[in-house]
């Protein structure tokens, strides 16, 4: 399988805010990034905000975390289930990186770091195969949460 970034000449960056961000800030930042040109793929990471208490004496009780709510990014509404800890981006090139930095400077409520590197995987894992079957669309690789039990129709399965 050929390296996706080599194929397209794209670069990958990781944006790490120095605080964990809530739903309001996340929505603002992601919308600013969505408007910025040159982003090929985007993924967000962070600590989970569970719907119910996962273990302990209060197991099963609803958490009702104020930061777990629906947000709208680029016209798509989805439920944010994490506190935003880092944003992974694949960009078309250096020009796009400057635009992303500008958007972050404008929208980020705290300090942040930007790292260049390789953050999204290129090859399917055994878990991917077990969950989704063969994934034809290479852009999806690395964007799925390997620990999630939610079922998406991404592959041949």
């Amino acid at each position: 399988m050929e390296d996706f970034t080599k194929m397209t000449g794209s670069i990958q960056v990781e944006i790490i805010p120095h605080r964990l961000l809530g739903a309001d800030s996340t929505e603002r930042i992601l919308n600013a990034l969505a408007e910025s040109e040159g982003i090929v793929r985007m993924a967000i990471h962070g600590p989970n905000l569970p719907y119910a208490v996962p273990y302990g004496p209060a197991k099963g009780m609803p958490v009702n975390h104020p930061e777990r709510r629906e947000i709208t990014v680029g016209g798509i509404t989805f439920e944010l289930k994490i506190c935003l800890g880092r944003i992974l981006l694949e960009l078309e090139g250096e020009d796009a990186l400057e635009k992303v930095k500008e958007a972050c400077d404008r929208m980020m409520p705290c300090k942040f770091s930007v790292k260049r590197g390789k953050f999204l995987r290129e090859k399917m894992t055994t878990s991917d195969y077990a969950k989704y079957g063969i994934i034809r669309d290479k852009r999806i690789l690395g964007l799925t949460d390997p620990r999630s039990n939610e079922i998406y129709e991404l592959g041949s399965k």
Partner: protein
Amino acid sequence: MAEYKTQYYPGVGKVAENRRNFMNPEYELEKQREVSDEDVALILGHRAPGEAYKSVHPPLEEMEEPDCAIRELVEPTEGAKAGDRIRYAQFTDSVYFAPSTPYVRAWMMHNRYRGIDTGTLSGRWIVEARERDVEKIASDLLKTEVYDPALSSMRGATVHGHSLRLLENGLMFDMLSRTELGEDGNVYYVKNQIGEPLDKKISVGKPLPEEVRKEKTTSHRVDGYKMRDDEELLKFVQRIHKLRAMAAYQLKIEE
């Protein structure tokens, strides 16, 4: 012969001094906030406020105890006298200059309280004792300089957050959202330590300012007071490390 003076912790730096203060039972911890006994019972969640303490044996006065020199020598705690159940309290401290750390809390317990069993994990600290003793300990810890409302938290389960970045509002991350920052700047408990919602919000006061945190902290950090800056402490730790390594390999080398 000179009188023996307890040496609680080595070092000449301010972190070592703060640790010594917490461990020394003669040092009176500075009281910083008011939390009522009723509120402490609500946060602990073991009994409803005003409810009688459940017991596992009759009061000691009513029990015919065997003749024993040790029993006469050691005065039982209030909870043991009444025959209370064993209950627990658990705290989590953030790595971002929280006033206390789990290990310091455990050392502190051994020096300041009796009739307790304490345990430390990476980011949390638990104490088990008779119910009314636990309430007294938790109350002391919540009210004094050992506690920062933003960076310390009572968490009976799902404790993680101690090593994570802080939230935007400066509170330690809690996936069960047990505490919240009110509009008046005070931190409120909205759930008890295991994550059950409370009927009322319990205020534990305002977070400490950044400069006070750095002055009062008991953790060494590279961006604060570094451990390597305290030569005496460093030498002591190296000595312990060396002796432990020697003993473990049973290398009969004299120091």
